[in-house]
């Protein structure tokens, strides 16, 4: 510690510890337990040293802990770079810095590191609760910083907190200006570390029995859709995702996509809507069957999957239009149809046998389909989220033994039956239905709404959607997953509809979260351009934006300054004082301003010294002013005389 540097008081150490604990707390669940334990220990140690006024530990000991901590991070993460390891390292160093905390300068450094730790929290979560918590943290850190500068006469914790609150409130206009005008770049401002996308759920390009049922246990939002017109009937809300062609006996997979031109016929008006897709680390962009246009930076496969050119790591918002009644694929090429009839040899013999038998009963494809659906409907098939596990011949076991399954079981069984009977068929996965948020009238589609259905190819009709699940459980399609599943099945709490109040809260919250996503997190380059265009700014190139940013910042600061300064300037009603200010103003313009703390007699004396030619007039004015303002004289005639003298005074 350098001699003479201001020493931190115990109070300031407590404040700093509390502020850092507050900022670091959300990380506690993300870093390995030993880092949390180390940080808590170091903070408690610092608190102990401060409480009993003991000396700080030696530098060598700290170096030892730094080395140990860095090694520990390397062992835990395999690296010391990247988001997770970086944050872990930052937390360790911050806690160690506390043990070097002796002077005001150290404290300020810690405060700034605390602000940085606030930012790191946003690398993990950008939700409203996180933002609010971080706002609280920033408030507290700022109050800590203000508190550092109360050397004596500390007025209690309310004063720094209030000052910090005022500071933050004053920064709001600037924050808004920066938010609206700061030039956005396509994609994130800097590349997030690669490990930032772990643990995101969503559909995949393969399907095994149970994979969609698993997904249905998550109430995470897959995407939200806002319709320009009325929301279509639930039975039409088939959100198309990966199309699965190839079956190896157990797993359905998408195989290589074909790219081609979209060709279809329709006789209906398109449905217009906007989708805000949550990141899912894959390339699909969901759209209602059948997409009529493509969002920017996408390609469409020839089986109508829309694929983004890059994996979707950020929330994407795109406008879509779809035709809900359509015909397509009537002139399908034979190799494609052959692929849609292929079945692996040696699997599901009983199903093949059944298909042959049913084919004999119904030579027409449409009759066969009707019969199979009737079989699902009339035999006691059971729709459940937790079906019994299936063995090697999964479709056989499902059709003849367990007879209970989730949508993927029905879709798979139906497709295998079709293919065995020689009808080209494929599985389409995606989402079905969704929940209308009555608060702002948009559709929430959750992972729990994941679904699988079938498309069969019929001569003269092309690809036709068949949903075998609808045969077993019509409610699934008409009223959603929660209505179709038995109460005993585990469903995420938020999808359950038992509690009306819970639903209301959930809808309101989702509505707020949606606006947050749309307008705060989703304020991308494109949105910014749209928004500025509505103000008549046609070409917001980044140079223009930077210029506008500077101008708007200047304006915001000026307005704030005007508001703050207005308090200082009160209107003067006293004619004597007003006239005297005028007198001072006249002299100030001649380079002889009165110092605010200079009395009238002193001022007059100084003026007489500096401008002897004015001495007589100045002394007249000053003497009258003094007797009017400080004496007992309040004669209106004297007031008039005084204002006249001031009016006629020439500096």
């Amino acid at each position: 510690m350098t001699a003479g540097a201001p020493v931190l008081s115990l109070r300031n150490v407590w404040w700093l510890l509390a502020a850092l604990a507050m900022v670091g707390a959300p990380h506690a669940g993300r870093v390995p337990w030993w880092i949390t334990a180390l940080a808590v220990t170091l903070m408690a140690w610092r608190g102990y040293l401060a409480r009993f006024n003991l000396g700080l530990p030696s530098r060598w000991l700290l170096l030892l802990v730094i080395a140990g901590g860095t090694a520990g991070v390397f062992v835990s993460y395999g690296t010391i770079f990247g988001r997770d390891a970086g944050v872990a390292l930052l937390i360790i160093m911050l806690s160690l810095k506390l043990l070097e905390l002796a002077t005001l300068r150290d404290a300020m450094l810690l405060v700034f590191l605390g602000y940085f730790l606030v930012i790191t929290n946003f690398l993990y979560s950008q939700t409203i609760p996180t933002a609010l918590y971080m706002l609280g943290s920033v408030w507290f850190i700022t109050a800590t910083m203000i508190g550092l500068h109360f050397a004596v006469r500390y007025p209690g914790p309310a004063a720094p907190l209030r000052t910090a609150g005022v500071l933050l409130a004053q920064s709001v206009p600037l924050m808004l200006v920066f938010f609206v005008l700061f030039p956005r770049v396509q994609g994130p401002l800097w590349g997030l570390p690669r490990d930032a996308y772990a643990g995101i759920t969503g559909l995949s390009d393969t399907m095994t029995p149970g994979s969609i049922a698993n997904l249905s246990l998550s109430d995470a939002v897959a995407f939200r859709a806002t319709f320009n017109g009325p929301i279509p009937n639930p039975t039409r809300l088939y959100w198309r995702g990966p199309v699965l062609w190839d079956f190896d006996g157990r797993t359905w997979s998408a195989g290589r996509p074909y790219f081609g031109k979209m060709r279809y016929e329709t006789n209906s008006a398109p449905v217009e809507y906007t989708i805000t897709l949550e990141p899912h680390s894959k390339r699909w962009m969901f759209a209602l069957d059948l997409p009529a246009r493509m969002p920017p930076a996408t390609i469409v496969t020839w089986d109508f999957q829309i694929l983004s050119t890059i994996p979707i790591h950020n929330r994407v918002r795109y406008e879509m239009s779809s035709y809900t009644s359509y015909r397509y694929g009537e002139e399908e090429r034979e190799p494609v149809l052959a692929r849609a009839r292929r079945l692996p040899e040696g699997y599901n013999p009983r199903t093949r046998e059944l298909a042959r038998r049913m084919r004999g009963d119904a030579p027409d494809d449409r009759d066969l389909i009707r019969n199979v659906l009737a079989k699902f409907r009339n035999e006691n098939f059971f729709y459940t989220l937790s079906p019994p596990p299936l063995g090697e011949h999964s479709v056989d076991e499902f059709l003849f033994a367990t007879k209970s399954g989730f949508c993927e079981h029905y879709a798979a069984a139906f497709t295998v039956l079709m293919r065995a009977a020689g009808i080209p068929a494929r599985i389409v996965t995606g989402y079905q239905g969704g929940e209308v948020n009555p608060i702002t009238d948009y559709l929430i589609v959750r992972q729990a709404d994941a679904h699988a259905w079938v498309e069969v190819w019929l001569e003269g009709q092309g690809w036709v959607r068949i949903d075998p699940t609808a045969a077993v459980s019509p409610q699934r399609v008409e009223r959603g997953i929660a209505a179709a599943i038995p109460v005993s099945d585990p469903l995420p709490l938020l999808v359950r509809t038992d509690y009306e109040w819970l639903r209301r809260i959930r809808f309101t919250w989702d509505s707020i979260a949606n606006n947050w996503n749309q307008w705060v997190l989703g304020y991308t380059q494109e949105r910014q351009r749209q928004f500025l265009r509505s103000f008549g700014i046609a070409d917001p190139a980044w140079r223009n934006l930077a210029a506008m940013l500077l101008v708007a910042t200047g304006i915001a600061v000026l307005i704030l300054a005007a508001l703050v300064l207005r308090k200082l300037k009160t209107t003067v009603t006293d004619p004597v004082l007003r006239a005297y200010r005028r007198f001072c103003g006249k002299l100030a313009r001649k380079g002889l301003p009165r110092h605010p703390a200079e009395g009238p007699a002193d001022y007059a004396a100084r003026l007489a010294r500096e401008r002897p030619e004015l001495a007589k007039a100045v002394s007249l004015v000053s003497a009258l002013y003094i007797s009017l303002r400080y004496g007992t004289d309040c004669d209106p005639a004297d007031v008039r005389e005084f204002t006249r003298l001031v009016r006629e005074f020439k500096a």
Partner: protein
Amino acid sequence: MAQSLDKVISQVGNVILGKDRQIRLAVACLLARGHLLIEDIPGVGKTTLAHALASSLGLAFQRIQFTSDLLPADILGVSIYERDSGRFKFHPGPIFAHVILADEVNRATPKAQSALLEAMEEHQVTTEGETRTLPRPFFVIATQNPSHQVGTFPLPESQLDRFLMRIELGYPDAEAERALLQGVDRRDLLSQLTPCMAVEELVELQQRAKRIHTSGALLDYVQALIAETRRSPDYVSGLSPRAGLALLHCARAWALIEGREHAIPEDVQAVLSSVVGHRLSPTGEADRVNGANVAGHLSRQVAIP
């Protein structure tokens, strides 16, 4: 009557050379019926000032040299048994005078100090169950060595507050110093001083000082000064209401000396440093405003409304 004040000031100024401001402040303190603390190193004329002032005003003058073995009775007086009358007779101490010079007040023990300070506050003395009123006017000029000198009991803040003003004399400037070196012995000068006014006249002047007009605008300024000391982090604690009253009384007395019927902000500024200097301590961070210029800093900070 104001002329006689001017005469007092110029007569004292002949003895204490080049210290016109301090003499005026001392007179203002007397007119405001407060007590004066002079703090400085030995030999700059503290005692001479007190003596000259008392002589010029025609007041009874007593000097008490404070030492570490001074007892309260040495100040207040004692009752002694008289064989003739068979009764105890009170022999008044040196405190029963108009002007008391309490020399080197911080060399005495706190007990002796408090005997003096209580008398200053109450304008009366209570010994052996009997209360005796002190003569009027009653004016204590205490001198104090800077507290870091050896063998001193510095006055605590609460007792410093009993003094209306604290002034420092400081070294004379070169011109005054030369005049001092060339001139006659100060003690001879002191003995030649003649009173310029009667005691009644002084009491009348004190009454007039009380009646000096202070307008709302002036009170605004005084309040602004006080508020600044309470608000600003530069001071350990703000000025008390008593300090505010002291400031106002001194400003009135100063206006009277200046020959005005009303006080103006300049009067407040003139007495500010001697009134608040010992009542206001700057905080550690505000070390730049140490000691004497704490008041200068304050008066520069506050705009005159």
